[in-house]
């Protein structure tokens, strides 16, 4: 109990004094995860819409695999990305290992299936509504995807936020490919793991509270900016 209390007070103290290290790793957490989220969404959302409007062989299979990949273990993703990016690996020449870029790559791989899967689920319903109309209006496949992405944007936001949640709290993969190097690749989650290992529970808890606060704030902010709760039913 005293650890929790100590953690809370220390968290507040760190926040009030705007502790330089805390600010640095929080910003890096945000930077890595938001970049990964942007890249992942740019792939996953159009792909989800494509899966909805396009009939092709292996479509069901693709969707099933996508759903299965939602449960991709981060540690394994980290390991595979590590092998690819390591000096002796195929992409070793780029020197990306133990940089924020490597962490972004790992997170993108982890959240693309998640975002695509959730997005596909909600776009499929929307397509059920729109199907007859858009076919009747002689739309091209591209126009159909456009209409789904635009009119389904609220639901897609939820998908993206789920991806954000998974990425910001993820530790296994970025620990491996980032290396938790101070002032280079240390983020909130890896710092928590480190402090816990060192036995500094108060600091670890403080960082944990900051992480939760950060996740909640970003979610609220995005909802606020997109008026999710204020207009209509969607």
């Amino acid at each position, binding site marked *: 109990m005293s650890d929790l209390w100590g953690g809370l007070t220390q968290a507040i103290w760190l926040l009030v004094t705007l502790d330089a290290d805390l600010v640095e790793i929080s910003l890096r957490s945000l930077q890595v995860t938001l970049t990964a989220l942007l890249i992942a969404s740019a792939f996953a959302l159009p792909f989800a819409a494509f899966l909805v409007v396009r009939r092709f062989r292996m479509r069901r299979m693709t969707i099933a695999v996508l759903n299965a990949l939602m449960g991709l273990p981060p540690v394994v993703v980290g390991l595979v990305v590590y092998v690819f990016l390591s000096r002796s690996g195929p992409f070793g020449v780029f020197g990306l290992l133990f940089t924020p870029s490597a962490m972004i790559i790992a997170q993108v791989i982890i959240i693309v299936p998640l975002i695509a899967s959730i997005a596909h689920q909600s776009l499929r319903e929307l397509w059920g509504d*729109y199907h007859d*109309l858009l076919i*009747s209006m*002689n739309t091209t496949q591209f126009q159909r995807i456009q209409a789904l992405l635009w009119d389904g944007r609220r639901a897609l936001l939820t998908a993206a936020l789920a991806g954000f949640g998974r990425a910001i709290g993820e530790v296994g993969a970025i620990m491996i490919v980032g290396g938790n190097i101070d002032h280079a690749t240390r983020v909130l989650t890896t710092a928590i793991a480190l402090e816990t290992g060192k036995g500094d529970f108060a600091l670890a808890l403080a960082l944990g509270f900051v992480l939760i606060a950060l996740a909640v704030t970003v979610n609220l902010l995005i909802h606020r900016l997109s008026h999710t709760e204020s207009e209509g039913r969607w």
Partner: protein
Amino acid sequence: MQMFPLEARQAIVRRKGKVLAGPIDLTLQGQGVTIVIGPNGAGKTSLLKMLHGIARLHSGSLEWACPTVEARKRQSFVFQRPVMMRRSVVENIAYPLRLIGVAKAEARQRAQEWAVQVGLGHALKQQATLLSGGEQQKLALARALIRDPAVLFLDEPCASLDGRATREIEEILIRAAANGTRLIMSTHNMGQAQRLADEVIFVLHGKIQEFAPADQFFTGPETKQGRAFLRGDIVE
């Protein structure tokens, strides 16, 4: 460009092994209002969708006087349950124009004019899904007419609407027909059929039982089923 006559030859629409409509042999000329009538489940919707080209033909053929691609561009369809896009009223009506590359400002301008014409001038910015049933159907009409189609298909557009909304929609339809739009419409309402029809297609079990000028059909249907249906009997 000449679109008519539209000729269907032995056209069949099937779904999951069940014949929904057909075999249909039909020649439609380019004038007036054609009303499709028949009991529930007779295949009115399937027939309309077949003629419009959104129900894939299982066999047979459907030919316009011009290439099908051209014909498809010049027809619209109004569904029994109007599909409201999750956008404002103006954006819904403007959407067909945006699809063919009309600039945003001009599309909105023309959509507003249409909204006023169908009596939705008060609700331009409102979300379309929040409109009442009658208003949604008027929106669907404006959206279908904004590209100035040569042919307009309507699938029971007034089902589940009250008298006033029905009259307003009929007025829009009569105006469209007067402007030269070919109307092909199914309905349940015999009064409506008599008010609007130039010719009547009577459908039963997915097949066309009778195809005749309106006055001829309403005064003396040739088939037994047609007479029974006009009397208001249950036709099986």
